[in-house]
């Protein structure tokens, strides 16, 4: 089993997500590998993505076409960047983004599950969504995820906002 997900965001947000995901992987006894990869197409357009690979064996180095299961886009990107991202997404993969910042038609040939969180959602809602999806994959309970969020995110305002967003996402 190897699950890989990519993040398109700034360094600070990536650090935050990385801390949470590593704690979750620690809890589920799996191996996780985090890498920064610069992608470019034949025309020279490029972008940096951060890739997490979770596996029970040591995960493979690098990424190739059709190799990413889940892409989360947290910042505005150009059409060219989105085209590059569509190439690395696996057929039937998942793509998550807020405020309609992605043109979903670019990804259409991969038949992905598109999760557009809507106009009123911000960065915290996307992080909460990512955390919720990964916790389901790693079979970590809701209460344990909240415990992780409480300990990992140190800043009080951020912590409250993130837990609130996570509760909203996982509301039954």
């Amino acid at each position, binding site marked *: 089993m190897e699950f890989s997900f990519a993040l398109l965001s*700034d*360094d*600070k947000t990536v650090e935050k997500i*990385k801390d949470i995901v*590593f704690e979750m*992987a*620690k809890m589920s*006894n*799996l*191996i*996780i*590998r*985090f*890498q*920064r*990869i*610069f*992608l*470019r*197409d*034949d025309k*020279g*357009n*490029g*972008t*940096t993505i*951060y890739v997490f690979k979770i596996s029970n*064996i*040591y995960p*493979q*180095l*690098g*990424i*190739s*076409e059709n190799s990413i299961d889940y892409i989360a886009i947290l*910042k505005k*990107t*150009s059409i*060219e*960047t989105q085209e*590059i991202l569509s*190439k*690395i997404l696996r057929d039937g993969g998942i793509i998550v983004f807020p405020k309609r910042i992605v043109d979903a038609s670019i990804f259409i040939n991969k038949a992905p599950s598109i999760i557009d969180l809507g106009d009123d959602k911000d960065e915290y809602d996307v992080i909460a969504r990512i955390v919720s999806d990964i916790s389901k994959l790693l079979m970590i309970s809701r209460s344990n995820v909240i415990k992780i969020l409480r300990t990992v995110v140190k800043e009080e305002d951020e912590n409250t906002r993130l837990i609130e967003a996570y509760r909203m996402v996982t509301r039954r």
Partner: protein
Amino acid sequence: MGRDRLSLSSVLEKIMSHYNINQLYVFLDPVALKVAQRITLGKIRKTYISDISDFYYHAIDSAEKFIAIASLKKSLLPEFILVLDKLVHISTQNGGSSWVMVIVCNDDRVMNRLLKAAYDARIPLTVPPSLDMVMGICSKTFCQRPKKNTSSFSIVCCGPEFIDLEVLKESADLIAIEGNVCEGELDIAYGSGEIAIVAVGSIIDEILGFANQENLHNEITIYGIVDLDVNLDEKLLSILEKHANILLIRNDDIISERLRFIAEKLLEEGKIPYIPNIISIGDLVGSDNENVKVGLRSIIKDILGKGLYFNKQSIRTSMDAGIECDKKIVELLDAIDKKVARTLRIYVKPIYGENGIHADDFYDAYSVTKTTSNYNAYTIIAHLTEILGNIKHIDRIIHSPARIILIFSSMFLTGSQKKAILKELTKELGKHVKIVSYEEILQKIDIIERFEKIIVT
């Protein structure tokens, strides 16, 4: 046993804590600063170094054990080799304290050049395949008792993939590592197959993992060269005597060069009865180095007749060391684009961003401004530490006829460091340009139209 998050920073921190090392030298470069920033142990004293010659004097004067973190760019290579040569000579002849210098190469080409140049200059380098091995190398250096008048030292050459790499693994037991590595060699030889794969760097770890998963130890033998020193030829000679089929990762590295040279020599002298079949994987599949790394598993399977490799990648990936532009720079770039039509963004590496071109250094950025004419303005984005030693080139860029906006990122710098570098900048270029802060320019974006040359810090 617990599980630990391993990164280059955490490995160095662990070593410093275990061997009671208090001194850390950090080169003023965004990549080195990024690695050092995550080392937060209270007792560690960080000394910032502006260039390699500055480091030379610190290293010579130092009476205690230390670790240094440097980042290497193409343009700095000759200077690095010169100083390292002197330093190695002094450490082996006159002794002194034990030290480890971790050189993080910004890309694969730089790493390749460093390995070649160091081999030619007889500078012993170690190239770790994994973070565990970085720990092993440091441990080996600091656990040894220095012989009379000599000091133990290691120059660790890390590939660009090590900078942002972080893994969750079983926590490393330093005492056990010490026992394993203190005496003997660090080189890796795994498997008993007829086909030999000879490699350096992180690719060894990848091949080892793959060979274990696929149970290939009876079909291939993996030789991972970790110590690149005067004994390299001997090591390669013993591989050539054992194997007729040798696979290399690339065709232009030091291993390939030496291996072919020794094979020719052995054939001439009649010491081997066969012509060795030395093939580079990159040449075999007609692909570049990065794509070989990514597709390595399927390429090896293809060679062994266990699958097919399709080389149809329309995207290229690289793990070059880099720093992403932060939010405020992106915001400013968008504002500039709205104000000035036809602007070319030039990112000076290791700064990376979207919708622009990436220049290796200020020379490169200058040549772009000179050779392109259909742009109204050039926005050059670089790290503030690039100012050190590059004032002349920045001056040239500023004096070119085009409209220039220079944006400097101060990520990983402390307030006082930023202030000191800005002072230097103002002293040298303050007369010719308008120097503004991010807040100022975002509030009064009209500044862009009023001034031809602007520096944003």
